[in-house]
């Protein structure tokens, strides 16, 4: 069995790990490391009560990742406290998104063993310049990005270029919407501002259904699926904690904001790949948003591959074709054709340039 298939099966039945030979762990650990899933699987194995019986090799690497994830889990509260405090004088209470939001909710399974490389926050659009200015005074400085990217961010997207804390190295992404307005699909963000929860420590996050909707929009409204498997497991863990009422709210919010199609995809592929328990009535309602048989087969071709654990060195040509199709689809979703064309041609120019001269000659270097 391919390592990728094996990992899917282990997600559904972690106790199968006990049947694996020491040798087969080498590929699995590589794949999990590339997917940033080592710590999450460590958690699954512990939950299933099999961790301590795994071979030393596997425990060694899983435990390393667990220690790093634990540290991040603890550190994120400190970062959230500082940001909340720094922005209070501006009358801005940031909403923590994605990985940080999962980790800030004590005991939420999606937050345990979930590592992330940046902290995402949502602030009101009219406050975003003031937020950026104030944070820069307190050590969050812009990362070097190319002039084209700078322009692209400011003009077309839902966020500003990332900021980096000068000493801690924390990368901060500041959003004013959840997807780029230029796509024409950006939701009325006020609907999300009405779906807020406070964590036990008083940090602001989206409600479970709204957070889940954001997670699935982020996954399916994208062109890059390198972390697709991780995002799919996020969805599984979030769905697993849903009450009937949460499902009703999720459907309602998806309907209002126009993301029923993406919800359909999320339900289809979590249940297909991870056997996520989704109520039959939810499946039925979302299935109304399925496209034609032919298009559905194309989507299946793309997503069943890209949402399985990927490793660039182990992938087949079909996996690469699926990735290319997803790239084109993702750009198409985000931008009207004339802007897409301009964007792709700049990206294509960069690709040709890198191929000719070797990468890195033109990328901005990090200071230090």
């Amino acid at each position: 069995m391919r390592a990728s298939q094996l990992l899917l099966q282990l997600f559904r039945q972690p106790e199968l790990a006990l049947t694996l030979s020491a040798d087969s762990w080498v590929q699995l650990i590589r794949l999990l490391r590339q997917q940033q899933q080592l710590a999450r699987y460590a958690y699954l194995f512990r939950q299933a009560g099999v961790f301590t019986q795994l071979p030393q090799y596997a425990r060694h690497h899983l435990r390393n990742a667990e220690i790093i994830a634990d540290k991040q889990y603890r550190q994120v509260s400190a970062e959230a406290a500082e940001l909340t405090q720094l922005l209070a004088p501006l009358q801005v209470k940031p909403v923590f998104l994605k990985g940080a939001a999962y980790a800030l909710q004590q005991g939420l399974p999606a937050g345990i063993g979930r590592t992330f490389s940046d902290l995402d926050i949502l602030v009101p659009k009219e406050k975003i310049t003031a937020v950026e200015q104030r944070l820069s005074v307190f050590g969050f400085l812009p990362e070097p990005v190319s002039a084209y990217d700078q322009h692209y961010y400011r003009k077309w997207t839902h966020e500003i270029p990332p900021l980096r804390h000068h000493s801690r190295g924390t990368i901060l992404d500041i959003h004013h919407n959840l997807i780029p307005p230029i796509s024409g699909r950006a939701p009325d963000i006020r609907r999300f501002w009405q779906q807020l929860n406070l964590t036990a420590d008083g940090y602001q996050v989206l409600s479970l259904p709204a957070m889940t909707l954001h997670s699935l929009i982020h996954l399916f409204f994208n062109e890059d699926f390198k972390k697709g498997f991780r995002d799919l497991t996020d969805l599984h863990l979030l769905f697993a904690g849903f009450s009937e009422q949460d499902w009703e709210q999720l459907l309602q919010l998806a309907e209002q904001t126009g993301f029923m199609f993406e919800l359909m995809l999320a339900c289809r592929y979590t249940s297909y790949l991870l056997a996520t328990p989704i109520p039959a009535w939810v499946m039925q309602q979302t299935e109304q948003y399925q496209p034609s048989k032919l298009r559905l087969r194309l989507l299946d071709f793309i997503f069943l591959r890209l949402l399985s654990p990927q490793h660039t060195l182990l992938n087949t040509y079909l996996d690469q074709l699926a990735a290319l199709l997803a790239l084109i689809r993702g750009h198409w979703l985000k931008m009207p054709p004339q802007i897409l064309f301009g964007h792709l041609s700049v990206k294509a120019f960069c690709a040709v340039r890198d191929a000719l001269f070797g990468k890195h000659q033109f990328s901005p270097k990090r200071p230090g």
Partner: protein
Amino acid sequence: MTITKQLYLPPFTFSVTTDIPLVAANLQRLYAHAPQAESLLVDYPLRLERGAGLRRLFKPQARFFADTQEPFQPLQLQQGYAMLEWGMNWCIAAHEMQYVIIHSAVLAKGDKAILFPAPPGSGKSTLTAYLAFNGWRLLSDEMALILPFSNKVQPFVRPICLKNRSIALAKSWFPTGVFSSIATDTHKGDVVHLSPPAASWQGALQQAEIVAVVFPSYQADTNLDIYSLDQTQAFMQLARNAFNFGVIGQEGFATLTAIIEQVPAFEVQYNDLTAVAAFLEQEVLADAR
């Protein structure tokens, strides 16, 4: 031609795949005495590749990959082997959290080890090379792997990284030593790696007990000055040189405070290596029970 070589460098196993002949040749020579193991499960699959593109025709580059990750900007091709050594250090510093890892040389007589934590420029590697070739056992040139809640240190035997003027010195002292090709003009200046003596390789599985911490500081105009450090100073200097101290939390804090209370710590300013060695052997080791 691409070759893959497996390196068992206890406690870790690497595999290195490279299409750069200079890297392959250095690897074969410097790791000739590395321990052998029956069955190897690779912890870190590494690649060192020629950069692609037209650029390679006029200014060839080397790129380092830890599996699919590329942590560094490419370097010049002639710096490829040094880049691989630094890449191996990066892998351990970035991933290994079950040892308290200090940026430090570790040398031992028998099973009594001394830590030499020091920033670049302190002459640490020259001292390391000198001691390793004069009856001491090298456990590590760059990284002390300390077992949590103990004063035991795990060897991680690797070549010694010599810089600039110490290269010619080392070559004159140890004419039979196995040196890598020179990497010129790196961010550390000119760099050569030196394979430790066979005895150090043979002890690669043998843990040792930390009996002192010595912060070396090369001073051209000082023959030998020894300062005893108080525990607070010693702890802070050690913590400042600890790679994963901030990540591993309580384990690291408890381990380092305990070590500092159990063993003496010195700052040694010197320009005379034989005098340092005499002090270490006659004073420091003699006092360690």
